[in-house]
C-alpha cells in the first residue's frame, strides 16, 4: 500500500512518514501541491494525505483539481483549521475524510486503513474487520478459519450495515431501515434479539458493542 503525503511542515511530515511506515505503508512525501500530478502519473497510490494550509496552491485547490481531472484516489485532509465550514467545503470538494491537528498517529493510521478498505471494498467487494472477512458480492461472512458463518437474512443485513460503517456507531433506526422490507414493521426489541444472535455467531472473529440509547458498533477483537 502506497500513500502520498502532501505536507509542508517537515516536523509533521517526518513523523507521519515514520509512523505510517511502521504500520507497513510505503509513504512518499512532497511539500507542495504543484508536483502532485507528476508524482501520480508515475506511481500508483492507494491514498493521499493532504494538508490544507500548503504554500502556493492550497489543499482546497489541490482537491478540486484532482477531482476535476477525474482522479478517484481516496483523499484524507489534515488541517489546523477546524471550522465547520472548512470541513464541509473540503468534503464537498471531494475529500473522503477530514482530520484536525493535533491528532494522534494511531488515529491517522486508523483513518487511512478505513479509507483504503472502503476503496478496496468498492473494487473487490470484500471487507475485512479484524479476523472477519465479509464477501459483499456473495453475501457471506467468513471466520478466521475460513468457515462461512450461518447467518439469517436479517443478521446478514445487520452485519453488512455495521461493516460498512465499522468503527462508528450505527443507530438502531438505521439498522431497522437496513433490514425492514416495505411491508415489515420491526421493533427495536427485535433488533436487540437479532444483534444478540449475530454477536454469538461472530464470536472469535469480531464483536458487536451495544451503546446504550444510541445503537451498535462493529469492533475487531
Amino acid at each position: 500500500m502506497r500513500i502520498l503525503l502532501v505536507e509542508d511542515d517537515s516536523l509533521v511530515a517526518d513523523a507521519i512518514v515514520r509512523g505510517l511506515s511502521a504500520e507497513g505503508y510505503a509513504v512518499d512525501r512532497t511539500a507542495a501541491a504543484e508536483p502532485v500530478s507528476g508524482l501520480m502519473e508515475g506511481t500508483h497510490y492507494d491514498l493521499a494525505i493532504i494538508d490544507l494550509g500548503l504554500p502556493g496552491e492550497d489543499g482546497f485547490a489541490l482537491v478540486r483539481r484532482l477531482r476535476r481531472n477525474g482522479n478517484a484516489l481516496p483523499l484524507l485532509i489534515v488541517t489546523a483549521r477546524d471550522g465547520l465550514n472548512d470541513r464541509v467545503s473540503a468534503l464537498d470538494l471531494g475529500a473522503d475524510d477530514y482530520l484536525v491537528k493535533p491528532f494522534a498517529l494511531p488515529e491517522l493510521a486508523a483513518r487511512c486503513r478505513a479509507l483504503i478498505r472502503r476503496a478496496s471494498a468498492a473494487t473487490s467487494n470484500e471487507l475485512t474487520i479484524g479476523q472477519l472477512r465479509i464477501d459483499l458480492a456473495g453475501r457471506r461472512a467468513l471466520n478466521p478459519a475460513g468457515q462461512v458463518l450461518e447467518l439469517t437474512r436479517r443478521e446478514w443485513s445487520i452485519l453488512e450495515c455495521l461493516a460498512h460503517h465499522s468503527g462508528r456507531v450505527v443507530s438502531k433506526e438505521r439498522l431497522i431501515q437496513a433490514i425492514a422490507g416495505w411491508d415489515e414493521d420491526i421493533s427495536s426489541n427485535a433488533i436487540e434479539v437479532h444483534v444478540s444472535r449475530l454477536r454469538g455467531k461472530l464470536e472469535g472473529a469480531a464483536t458487536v458493542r451495544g451503546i446504550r440509547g444510541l445503537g451498535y458498533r462493529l469492533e475487531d477483537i
Partner: protein
Amino acid sequence: MLSYLLAPLSLLLVIGVAIDHQVIVNPIYSAFDRSLSRAALAIAAHIRRTPDGQLDIPVPDRPLAPLRSNAHEQFFYRVSTLDGRTVAGTADLPLVAAEKNSKGLDYADVTYRGTALRLVSYRTTEAGEPLVVTAGEIPFRRDRALHRMDVSFGINNSIQMLLMLSTALLGINIALRPLRRLREQIVGRAPQALSPLSTAQVPAEVRPLVDSLNTLLVSVRDSSLAQQHFLANAAHQLRTPLTGLKAQLEVLGQEASGSPLQARITQLHSGIDRLAHTANQLLALARAEPSAHLASHFTRVELHPLIAEVISSSLDRALQRDIDLGAECQPVQVHGVYWLLRETLLNLLDNAIRHTPVGGQITLRCGTEAGQPFLEVDDSGPGIPLAERERVRERFYHGAGSDGDSCGLGLSIVDEAARAHGAHFSILDSHGRHGARMRIDFPLPGDDTPPAARPVVKN
C-alpha cells in the same frame, strides 16, 4: 431634578415678592397720606372765628365719623398757632417741621406715647392768623393693606411658580423621552452585542451622543474581533508544531519500546497532549465569545445526532476506563451554532470522563421540559460541592478534585457557549446516587432571532 429646581425657584419667589412690595409700598402710602391730609383739610375747613375773636373748632375731641372706620384706628388732631399754642385737639401731639417747598402740607413719622404715628400738618390762615392743623393716625390700615397686598402677591407668584415648575418638568420629561428610548435600546441589548445602535428614531439633539456611542462600540467590536482573530491565529499556529511534536514522540515511543527511555517519552507525550488540549480550549473560548459575526452561524440543530456524534468520538476513551457511556434522547432541535454546541458537549463529556471512576456510568440526555429544550451530561463521579459550583466556571480554575491534566477552561467554554445561545448552564446533582449533572436549558423554541439581537432575560 426637582430638588435642583426647587431651591433657586424659592429664592426667586422671595425676591419677586420683595420687589413687588417695594413697588407697591409708595403708592399705598401716598394714597393713605392723601386721605389723612383730606382729614386735616376738613378740620381746617371747620375752623371759624367767633364774633369775640376766639377760634372755634366745631369738631371737638371726637374725630370725623368717616375717618374712624375701625376700632383699631386711633385718630389725633391738633390745631395750633405758629408759636406752638394749642387752639384745639390733643395738646401734646408732636408738630411737623415745615418743609421748604411744601405746598402747605408736610408729613412725618413720629412716635407718640409709645406708638408709631403718621402725621400731616396743614398750614392755613384764619382771619389773618396763621394756624397749623396737624392730623395723625396709627398706620394700622395702611400696614394691613400693604400686608394683604404682600400676601396676595405671594400667593400669586407661588401659583405662577408652580405652574412654571410643572410646565418645565413636563417639558424636560418630553425632551428626555428620546434619551429614555435610547437607554431602553441599550439596556435591551445582549451584554456582548457590539453592533451599532440604530439611529432611525433618534432626534437631532441626541444624535451626536448616539454617533459617539456608535464610534465607541465599533472600536470596541473591532478590538474584540482583532483579539479573537489573534487568539484563533495563535492557536492555529500552535497546532502544526504540536502535531509534529506529538507524532514524533509517538514514533520515538514505539522505537524506544522496552527501553528505559520510554517512560520519559510517555511523560513528554502527556505534556504535549496537555499543551494541545489547552491550545484547543483557548481557540474554542475565543470563538465562543458571542460577537456580531456569530449571528450568521445560527441554524436549526438536532440535538440527538449531535449527541450521537459526540459519544462516537469519545467512546474509545470511555471504554478504556470501562465506563458505560450512553444516551437517553428525545428528538428535539434548538436554534444554535452547530460547532459551538458540539464543542460544549465535548467539553462536558470530557469533563465527565475525567471525573468518573473506572467502571462508572455517564449518560447524555436531550429533550424538552415545559417546552424548553435541554441537554444534560450525567456522571457517576464524585460530583461538585455546592460551594464550588460557581467557581468551577471561572477560567483556569482548578478544583480540589481536578487531576492537573485539565487546563480549567472546559466549563468556562460551556458557560460562554450557553450564554451565546441565550441558554442557562447549571450544575446539579446526578440523578444517580452520586455524581454531577451538567445541564443546559435553552430558551423556548419558535424565536429564530439570534440571541445577540434579542434582549437577555436576567434571572
